[in-house]
């Protein structure tokens, strides 16, 4: 079966997902700062205001508690809000609305309220945005039950996961990486292209070690794998794509084969998603492991504002390479 694709950027893939879902279902609408006439600070929503008008593409003022809390209220009353925070960090400005209202209100009300909302969260470093605009906070979403968490690493996944998120009856935190917005890739053109939640993608096959990487780090892991292949170290690179639900089966099956695992993410290493993944790998595959599960993540510091310095805080392809080389030698 051949799938028709087009080569577009990650931001544009998100834009297509939004447009297609808004065309499909009149209950889908959007709000956020500058998403209307401007098309968003990162240009992701360009054209949507013109196509869908001001009732369904709403510019808000600077009110993150309303953007998210309003999404919760709207979701429980028959519409499907897809809201944008300009930076994922601002999720903490609306912490109560994300972690209490969206995450818990279905449960608290005995399943009688539905909360089909998507919160789009531009995540990660982008070149000088600073400590309060560059974080990777997906682990917080993982720790609070009731939220699904997606982290697309490719344009195709950006489209397919967002469409799945919008059709999901549960609240979804959608972490789009700001540093990937302009990265291009083949994206299926179909209106019904969905990437299911909870299915990891094996980005590369190998047997020397399993690297589990998310978001921006998927590309860096593949770069490292490329370099190591020259030394006959063949990495298996797995991108979980969603952290909730998390496809541990694929990861464990791989680790059982390779005997070694490295988890890499851009988020702070301490208490990041990698801690959970590492803990689960050794729980499930302890006797198959030839070495401890290792993790790479950001240093235990805020992100410096300077665009060059910020790269020193998060893992590089070279660091992944060095770590793997050491790990396979254990």
């Amino acid at each position: 079966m051949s799938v028709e694709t087009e080569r577009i950027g990650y931001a544009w893939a998100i834009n297509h997902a939004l447009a297609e879902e808004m065309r499909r279902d009149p209950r889908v609408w959007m709000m956020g700062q500058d998403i209307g006439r401007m098309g968003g600070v990162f240009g992701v929503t360009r054209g949507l205001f013109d196509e869908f008008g001001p009732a369904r593409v709403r510019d808000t003022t600077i009110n993150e508690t309303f953007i998210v809390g309003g999404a919760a209220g709207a979701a429980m009353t028959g519409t499907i809000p897809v809201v944008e925070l300009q930076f994922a960090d601002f999720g903490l400005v609306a912490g109560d609305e994300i972690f209490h209202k969206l995450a818990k209100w279905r449960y608290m009300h005995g399943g009688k309220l539905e909360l089909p909302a998507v919160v789009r969260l531009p995540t990660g470093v982008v070149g000088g945005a600073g400590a309060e605009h560059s974080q990777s906070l997906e682990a917080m979403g993982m720790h609070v039950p009731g939220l699904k968490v997606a982290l697309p690493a490719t344009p195709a996944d950006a489209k397919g996961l967002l469409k799945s998120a919008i059709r999901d009856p549960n609240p979804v935190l959608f972490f789009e990486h700001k540093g990937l917005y302009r990265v291009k890739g083949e994206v299926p053109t179909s209106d019904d292209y969905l990437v299911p939640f909870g299915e990891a993608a094996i980005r590369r096959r190998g047997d020397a070690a399993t690297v589990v990487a998310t978001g921006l780090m998927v590309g860096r892991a593949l770069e490292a794998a490329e370099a190591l292949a020259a030394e006959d170290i063949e990495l298996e690179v797995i991108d979980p794509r969603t952290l909730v639900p998390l496809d541990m089966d694929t990861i464990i099956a791989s680790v059982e084969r390779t005997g070694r695992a490295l988890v890499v993410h851009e988020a702070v290493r301490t208490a990041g998603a990698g801690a959970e993944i590492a803990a689960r790998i050794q729980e499930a595959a302890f006797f198959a492991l030839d070495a401890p599960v290792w993790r790479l993540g950001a240093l235990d510091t805020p992100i410096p504002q300077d665009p060059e310095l910020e790269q020193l805080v998060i893992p590089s392809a070279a660091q992944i390479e060095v770590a793997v080389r050491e790990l396979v030698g254990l």
Partner: protein
Amino acid sequence: MSTKTAKEAAGAAPAEEGSLALDLYRQVTRIRALELLLNRYVKEHGFGGFWHPGLGQEAVQAGAVMALRREDYLYYAHRGLGYALVKGMAPEVLLGDLFGRTGGSVGGKGGGTVHFVDPELGVLGQGGTLGSNFVLGAGAATSIQILGEDRVVAVFFGDGAAARGTFHEAALQAAVWKLPIVWVCENNGWHLSAPFSDQSPTEDIADRAAAYGVPGVVVDGQDALAVRAATLAAVERARAGEGPSLVEAKTLRIRGHYEGDPQKYRDDIADGLEVPRDPLAILRERVPAAEADALDAVAAEEAEAALEKALAMPKGGPEVVTQGVWA
């Protein structure tokens, strides 16, 4: 107190007033009967969790909710269960929630201060974190606008909750978008142990409405007819697409913050069940005594029967704990 008052025009014509007063009396006495029953029950049997009594605030809850239609949405506050009762939920269901019974509306997850829900009746919940009602309500009102529905959202809140930033964020956007919202403030003079008068730079919360260019009125919260009239005016304005309004009802917190609160911080009121400016007494002047007596009797019976039914419901067990996280 502010010179603004609810438009008389929004009240009922004299012919209807009799039946309106009766309807309100029925609701106020129903709430009162449940409140007193709960008070007694808690005293005798103790209570798992927290219960925030609404004794004395019945006129606000009954008056405002009666200005709503069945399809209108309601985000209630934590003080009592009058809101949900008047909106149409069965008293045994509400008590079931309070006692953590599977026959409660949240299916056994409740216990203590709970989160009653009935989407059919528009009863949507209350923020355990004060102030989340404001943004939730504005979101529900945005849904209404997008779907072109003929509904209104009522958002209840206390004088304390009014301090939350969510009020400001929701109010600005609601005013700009002309969302169909009525904010009903139950100003009972206390934020838990802190007197409102110590914590507000102005005498009336209604004065804050001007910052958003929307109407704000002060009304006597012990007078159910006045509350209903003021709320109805606001509801009609909202339904007509003219945007949100704020109704501040001045009322009293008779009991502790929660049932059992020793209230050492307070000396304005004896720790009893007497309600100064009792909304029931005020309404009684507008209705025939015999009918009021009859309604009192029905309400007392209803409350007793509800308690019996609720206590007969099974408690939630391990099976309910993991239900309902995901759709």
